[in-house]
């Protein structure tokens, strides 16, 4: 009797083994991702949404996201990638461009926002129309003046490419190539773009000191700018009417999303980190230098503009010297360890169609 029980047990164990190995093996070896930690910089708040709870960060997912990010073949003319408008050397904004270029010599109508510290954001785009990090790429992928591609074409391209097939298996365990997995891999890359190693950060951590000029600029910044550009992210992620007039695209910003008249001309407060590299500024890239941006807040605002944010109704008065002090403080937010990080940069040279 005893041997029957033992044999049955052995049979059961063997059967389970076969089932377990069959579910995870596609001829590329067993699924063994390298899990990555999500490190919150010292003194920073915890992100409101944990984007990596359901989409666990792995080296394989990150690398797949990076490949997708730098791949121009996702676009309809084969030349425009995410990186075309989000360039590492411009802190992942479009360097020196008010508006970015899409396929077929098209222009966008807004300045490409810098991709940094996205894991701390809950709304994306200047108007906040995108409600989750994962679904953001759907906009630029399909917009006719950006990458101009249908989602079906993107997915079938990925399915027919052996290196993508291999990378999807490495990242997710099997060869199922879906929009969900593509978007999750992209979120692993873009959500990992953390900048927290500028001179400002080193000063805050006691590893460096501001010059007198920068220190005076910092004090003036705290008095005049920090209400919206809140440390340590240098944005409070709110939407505000900052006194910019309605532009030639009749872009009313947040109102387009909420339909509320009170949201007219409200745009997202951008982070000022790496501001030295993200010029030109504002939602339409219409201001080209930091001192000119400060000039806008000193004298460029139409104080009678309906819906003007209440913090801007009181005039900001700064001398030319003070303006320069703030500018020099803002340049301490430049983080070249971030922009030059080989992990975030392409493995091979990228063709920028600009």
């Amino acid at each position, binding site marked *: 009797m005893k041997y029957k029980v033992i044999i049955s047990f052995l049979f059961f164990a063997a059967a389970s083994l076969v089932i377990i190995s069959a579910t995870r093996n596609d001829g590329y070896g067993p699924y063994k991702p390298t899990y990555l930690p999500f490190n919150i910089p010292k003194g920073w708040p915890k992100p409101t949404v944990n984007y990596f709870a359901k989409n666990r960060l792995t080296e394989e997912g990150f690398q797949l996201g990076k490949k997708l990010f730098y791949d121009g073949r996702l676009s309809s003319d084969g030349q425009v990638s995410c990186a075309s408008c989000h360039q590492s050397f411009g802190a992942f904004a479009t360097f020196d461009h008010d508006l970015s270029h899409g396929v077929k010599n098209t222009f966008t109508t807004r300045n490409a926002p810098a991709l940094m510290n996205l894991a701390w954001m809950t709304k994306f785009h200047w108007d906040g*129309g995108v409600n989750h990090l994962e*679904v953001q790429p759907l906009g630029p992928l399909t917009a006719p003046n950006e990458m101009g591609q249908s989602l079906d074409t993107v997915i079938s391209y990925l399915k027919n490419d052996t290196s993508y097939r291999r990378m999807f298996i490495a990242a997710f365990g099997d060869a199922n190539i879906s*929009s969900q997995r593509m978007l999750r891999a992209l979120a692993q890359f873009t959500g990992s773009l953390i900048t927290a190693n500028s001179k400002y950060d080193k000063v805050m951590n006691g590893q460096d000191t501001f010059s007198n000029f920068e220190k005076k600029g910092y004090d003036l910044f705290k008095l005049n700018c920090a209400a919206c550009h809140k440390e340590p992210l240098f944005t409070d992620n709110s939407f505000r009417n900052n006194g910019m007039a309605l532009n030639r695209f009749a872009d009313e910003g947040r109102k387009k999303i909420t339909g509320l008249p009170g949201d007219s001309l409200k745009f997202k407060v951008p982070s000022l980190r790496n501001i030295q590299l993200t010029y030109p500024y504002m939602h339409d890239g219409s201001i080209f230098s930091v001192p000119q941006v400060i000039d806008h807040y000193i004298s460029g605002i139409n104080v009678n503009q309906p819906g003007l944010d209440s913090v801007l109704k009181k005039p900001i008065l700064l001398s030319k010297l003070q303006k320069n002090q703030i500018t020099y403080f803002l340049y301490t937010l430049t983080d070249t360890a971030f922009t030059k990080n080989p992990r975030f940069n392409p493995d091979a040279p990228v063709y920028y169609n600009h």
Partner: protein
Amino acid sequence: MNRKYISGLLFFAGMCCLQQSYAQKNEASITLRFQYIANDKPLVLADSTYTNAFGEQYTITKLKFYISNPRFIVKEKNNKEASVFLIDAAGDDSISFKAPAGEYSKLMFSIGVDSALNSSGAQAGALDPLNGMFWTWNSGYVYFKMEGYSPSSTADLKRMEYHIGGYMQPNNASREISLALDKTITLNKADHQEILINLNLDKYWQSVNDIKIASNPLIMVPGSLAKKASENFPAMFQIATLH
């Protein structure tokens, strides 16, 4: 040895019970099949012309919508199980789900997608953005999409397009549909119940609110107009037959 034999036997008995409970849960399977009616005639896509309550003529080229959380109601007790299906008049016209055995007098489902699923990142299956029911520039799902042409339309090419959706208050466009069964039905274990449901387009134009093609040939964004259109959804659905 005896003890080992008994424990082995118990183990196998346990395994068998487990298997059985998976194979034969105490539930019946339900199929809801949809048929589309306009002017008391079956809807033919991209062909027949219909007339709404305001005398406006139209043809339909596309009709797709989400059904969420279909369920039977037992004495008002809600056995809600989150699920979502995409119905396409040019494709899949039926959905299947399971319900515990019991006596039922009411069928419920939503036209729409749960708010949380509109804002929790990339989804798969029926909610895959590949299905063309996700707004990329203003995140969220189109719950009900109806497109066609009408001579009353003032839009380009006499188009009419109704992309009804929106998950944020006060303009959430998801609508609960509650259909009383004309008789109480008893579902036993492993029964299969098919229910044919009419979607009557005449009610889309006029029931709680008036939706006139001439005044609104295009509703493509969440907002008060989309909400108004969605308030007509409940009147559109009736049970045709219980099989």
